């Protein structure tokens, strides 16, 4: 079952919903489906971030059938509007609500206070509450696999990296990629261009062209559209897909893609609510737990490189390899991590410096 509801419907429907609130309470009848709400920052058709979360929502529906009913609200602006949308989901009988963007953190916490019986799951945030969990994926682990491949495949030794905003989430990806690439080819340079948007196909494509014109023959992105990879395909270089498998846009250019796979987590948390076992937690899952996966390797990845990439992936899964294991020097040559040490999760989550080899 699926209901797509516009924000306007919510406004109109909220009065009616408020009237039935007294009956909602804890799940009264087992036959009544559990209502699960999703708040998205972008359109479900972005083929990137929001698309990935919506796949997770669909996975819940497929898994639980008639036991669960999901609702989503897309294109919700981060800020006061988000609070209104989340509140209306909570007041219209949704018992589990996923708010899937960093900027929904404070609105989620405020609404959670008003609805102590509703469970909230906030993506990529860092503040929990008795009824608010946070979850995030270690996308930077995928960057290690990409960097390993890039170090082998690049001829010019220059990789282009299209960034959205210089926040720790993006910076850790750039650093993880650069460290892995330089492990294979120590003179690799990573040129970063910021487009100041998560999603602007035209500008992302233009940034890719600019980077290629400056000698990059590997394209990485931390933005959501397939445009950079499409440019890579047209210009005959290689690159990595972001958030979803973008092979259809770049059948030759895509070496692999970092996939966000929320399905497992979403199904598990929904089951926890159904079984009344849900508890507040804070998780940061990666390749090991399957929240981050790699798309099938492209034809341009030679067999030996494929094996090395797989070895890197397996080492990350087993814990034998840490994405930020020392020795690491930053851009200015200052030692940041000593030999034998590695960065803690807290240090990674606050990363605001670039490793050697990054040009940003």
């Amino acid at each position, binding site marked *: 079952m699926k209901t797509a509801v516009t924000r306007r419907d919510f406004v109109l429907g909220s009065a009616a919903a408020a009237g039935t609130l007294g009956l909602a309470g804890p799940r009264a009848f087992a036959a009544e489906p559990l209502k699960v709400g999703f708040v998205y920052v972008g359109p479900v058709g972005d*083929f990137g971030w929001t698309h990935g979360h919506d796949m997770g929502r669909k996975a819940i529906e497929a898994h639980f059938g008639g036991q669960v009913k999901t609702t989503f609200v897309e294109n919700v602006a981060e800020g006061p509007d988000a609070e209104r949308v989340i509140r209306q989901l909570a007041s219209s009988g949704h018992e589990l609500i996923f708010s899937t963007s960093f900027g929904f953190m404070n609105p989620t916490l405020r609404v959670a206070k008003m609805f102590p019986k509703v469970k909230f799951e906030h993506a990529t945030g860092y503040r929990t509450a008795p009824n608010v969990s946070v979850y995030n994926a270690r996308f930077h682990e995928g960057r290690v696999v990409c960097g390993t491949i890039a170090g082998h495949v690049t001829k010019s030794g220059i990789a282009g990296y299209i960034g959205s905003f210089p926040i720790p989430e993006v910076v850790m990806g750039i650093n993880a990629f650069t460290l892995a690439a330089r492990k294979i080819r120590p003179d690799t340079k990573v040129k970063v261009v*910021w487009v*100041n948007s998560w999603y602007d196909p035209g500008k992302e494509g*233009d940034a890719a062209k*600019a980077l290629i014109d400056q000698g990059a023959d590997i394209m990485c992105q931390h933005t959501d559209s397939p445009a950079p990879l499409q440019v890579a395909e047209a210009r005959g270089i290689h690159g990595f897909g972001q958030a979803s498998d973008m092979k259809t846009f770049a059948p030759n250019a895509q070496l692999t893609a970092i996939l966000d796979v929320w399905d497992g987590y979403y199904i598990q948390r929904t089951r926890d609510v159904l079984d009344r076992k849900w508890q507040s937690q804070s998780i940061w899952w990666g390749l090991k737990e399957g929240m981050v996966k790699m798309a099938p390797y492209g034809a341009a990845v030679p067999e030996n490189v494929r094996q090395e990439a797989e070895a890197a992936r397996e080492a990350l899964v087993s814990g034998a390899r840490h994405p930020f294991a020392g020795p690491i020097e930053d851009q200015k040559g200052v030692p940041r991590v000593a030999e034998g040490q590695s960065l803690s999760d807290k240090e990674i989550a606050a990363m605001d410096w670039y490793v050697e080899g990054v040009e*940003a």
Partner: protein
Amino acid sequence: MSAETAVLVMLTVISAATPLLFAALGELVVEKSGVLNLGVEGMMLAGAVAGFAVTVSTGSAVLGIVCAALAGALMALIFGVLTLTLAANQVATGLALTIFGVGLSALLGAGFVGVPVAPLPKLAVPGLSDLAVIGPLLFAHDALVYLSILATAGIGWFLARTRAGMILRAVGESDESAHSIGYNVIRVRYLAVLFGGAMSGLAGAFLSLSHTPMWAEEMTAGRGWIALALVVFSSWRPGRVLLGAYLFGGVTILQLHAQGAGGLGIPAQVLSMLPYLATIAVLTIIAAGPWRGRLDAPACLGKLFRPPT
């Protein structure tokens, strides 16, 4: 930077400027007739999805482009009926048209997300296209790029030199005078609004078929608003719209290059502001110069007109 790279950069600039040029030219004609249509973004999206869907479904890019223009015009027709016939507020209706366009295009395009399409073919001129530097810069674009340049000249000529153009301007400057000497103000404005919609549709088609050949929701990413601003900063002159669009496109691309080259010590955020700052500065300086003439906002811009009965 080698000559070859410089040519590639110039090509990127042309590609970034073309959608802005189409949309701004269309809006210029609309505003010259005294109507303010803020729905450019929505009409561009309608054009982008129609152009893409038809091209993918029929395999004909020509048909796709025609349908994109029609889709834009159809959106504009809704605006026309509401504001010209029913005399609704133009600002509110235009904003509503954008919001409607975002939703409608997402709905229609849902089945086309993640579908690839062949980019528009480049029209090569035998002999000329192979010339060094000049060849790729002047003679190896797709049809829409040429059309946007022709449209600039054509609209300039139409507004300044033709009788119909003068009538359109008269309607925009003084609707009541134009009406009293026997011109059908509403009809002229309808035609202008439809033309503006078709141009926005072409802008959208250029995005989804040439600039980034794909359909993705809200892929215009605010270009409709930039086009609207360009019309004002160009003080309603087609030549300056061209200048503004290429300037904006050019500085956008150059700042991306500057970032890739290490940023020249300038923060990326400052570089990102440059296209906006440069375009506003240059067009304001031109508009304030001794050769400016009047500031040229059509006197009846945004005013409702009800024919006296």
